[in-house]
């Protein structure tokens, strides 16, 4: 299992040397490339999965932003939890998350992934995917429109753009 190892790498960053102008510039450039190639995992559990497909489809076309889907978690950067997560499924979601290489991002798409949504009172539904894996962005909607998901992707890109990349390499390696 790759789980424990990976989690260790999410240790908080320590403040390292003073921010260097060069590294900041490089960060900007690298992050610009990184954010332009966010590959998302084809992970559709329920209703939102259909809207996820439609988002990758012709009308919204996430490919414009360089975001394409991958089937293998090893090759994806973004986990879009599209739909209800049941207790039976919960372990698998965590496994999939752990299989993704760093840096990775998670969007909780739709009410079910946010907090259980309309299935909150149900006996078999996990009340929010953030009980299992860390979530970067919460996306309201049941299901959210493709454009809303597109907006979430842009938010993820903004987040990537703001990340100090070089510092992280120093800590992680």
């Amino acid at each position: 299992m790759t789980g424990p190892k990976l989690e260790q790498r999410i240790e908080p960053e320590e403040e390292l040397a003073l921010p260097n102008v060069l590294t900041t510039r490089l960060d900007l450039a690298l992050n610009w490339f990184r954010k332009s190639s966010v590959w998302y995992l084809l992970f559709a559990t329920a209703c939102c999965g259909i809207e996820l497909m439609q988002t990758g489809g012709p009308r919204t076309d996430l490919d414009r932003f360089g975001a394409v889907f991958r089937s293998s978690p090893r090759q994806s950067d973004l986990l879009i939890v599209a739909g209800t997560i049941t207790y039976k499924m919960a372990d698998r979601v965590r496994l999939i998350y752990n299989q993704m290489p760093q840096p990775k991002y998670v969007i909780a798409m739709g009410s079910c992934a946010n907090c259980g949504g309309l299935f909150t009172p149900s006996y078999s539904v996990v009340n929010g995917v953030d009980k299992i894996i860390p979530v970067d962005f919460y996306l309201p909607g049941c299901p959210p429109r493709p454009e809303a998901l597109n907006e979430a992707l842009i938010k993820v890109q903004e987040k990537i753009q703001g990340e100090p990349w070089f510092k992280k390499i120093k800590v992680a390696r």
Partner: protein
Amino acid sequence: MRQIADWIILNLFGVADAGSWPYSWLVYLGMMVFAAVLAITFVAIFAGPVTWVERRVAGRIMSRLGPNRVGPQGFLQWLADGLKNLLKEDLIPDAADRPLFRLAPHLVWMGMFGAFVVLPFGAHLVAADLNVGLLYILAITSLVVLGLLMAGWASNSKWALYGGIRSTAQLVSYEIPTAFSLMVIVILAGTLSTQEIVRAQGGWPWDWFVFRNPFTFLAFFLLMTSSLAEGNRVPFDLPEAESELVAGYNIEYSGMRFLFFLFAEWANLWIMAAIGTFCFLGGWQIPGVSPDAIDALLARSHGWSWSWVGLQALSFAIFAIKASWLVFVVIQIRWTLPRLRVDQLMIACWKYLVPMTLVCILGVLAMALLIPQGGVLDYLIRGLMMVVGGALVALFLWRARVNYMLARDSYRKMEGRELWFPPYRLV
């Protein structure tokens, strides 16, 4: 290369006899590394933009746009994908066979990359004009089989193993129709050297091997089909069948190593197109300029001259256009056809392609014996084949137009605007 190294040794270190100088191997090594870096960059530049082209073309085929945000019209998309994958975490599953897991992408890459050595890009633009060029291509690309199987095995995932096994069965089988359809060319050209094959043809279409006779015409399509299978392209992409094996042999690969597989795939696209071009479509041959004239130009000017450079560039451009066209066709096939099943794949190879290529060989032999080269009958057949080829293209464009016209009016009524939106209009 050797000459340049010797030249460096002579001028930089003042050693005339490189062979006896003890440090000359260092210079040689440096030169090799330099050449390798140069070549990898070259291949990357070949392979990279194709991914962008493919995604744009695929986008338009699917009524969407494709990447258009990263750089001008999204052209830097391939760079972004590459850099991002370089920066990803280096992840090797615990259960994987680590040395093999690391080695596999390099083998795949080497197999693809090695083939570039003998590709004749221009009149004198070939890294090494081996006299066994075709054989070398067939041999070196076999490394890919090894790499894929290794990747499948080392990942220690059953899906990857399935992908590896499938690719082995597939690549080993399809070597045969590929080799057989290349045999047709070898028979006609009488050589295995890639440059010689190009020189055996001519600049004008009637001198190309593809229009030489019906059997070469058929062999061209057979070669393209079987090299689709060699390159794991749809409809033969079983080793990485998305919907069956998730991602096939590369399911456990991430980041940098996955990038190697990706690039190998795209580089292979070029190799596929290049083989088709130099074997059947006249390669870099410039219409109206005989290769001997270019040679003579080089010999006359004792080195290089501007007219020689111009001709080189022209020959390269001709080669690139032809190859790009093939690449485009392959891309379009990729986004049109579904995937074969594994038994159908084998049936297609052994029951259809292999017999047909054998027929082609026999037919070409018979034609070579019966019809004298350069005779009236020969040119009549060439003309006929060109008419057939042209008719096919015309029919294709007509069918495409029919499809367009069928949708045009109802679209205008529905959306209130014109359906016409040619691919050169960028958004």
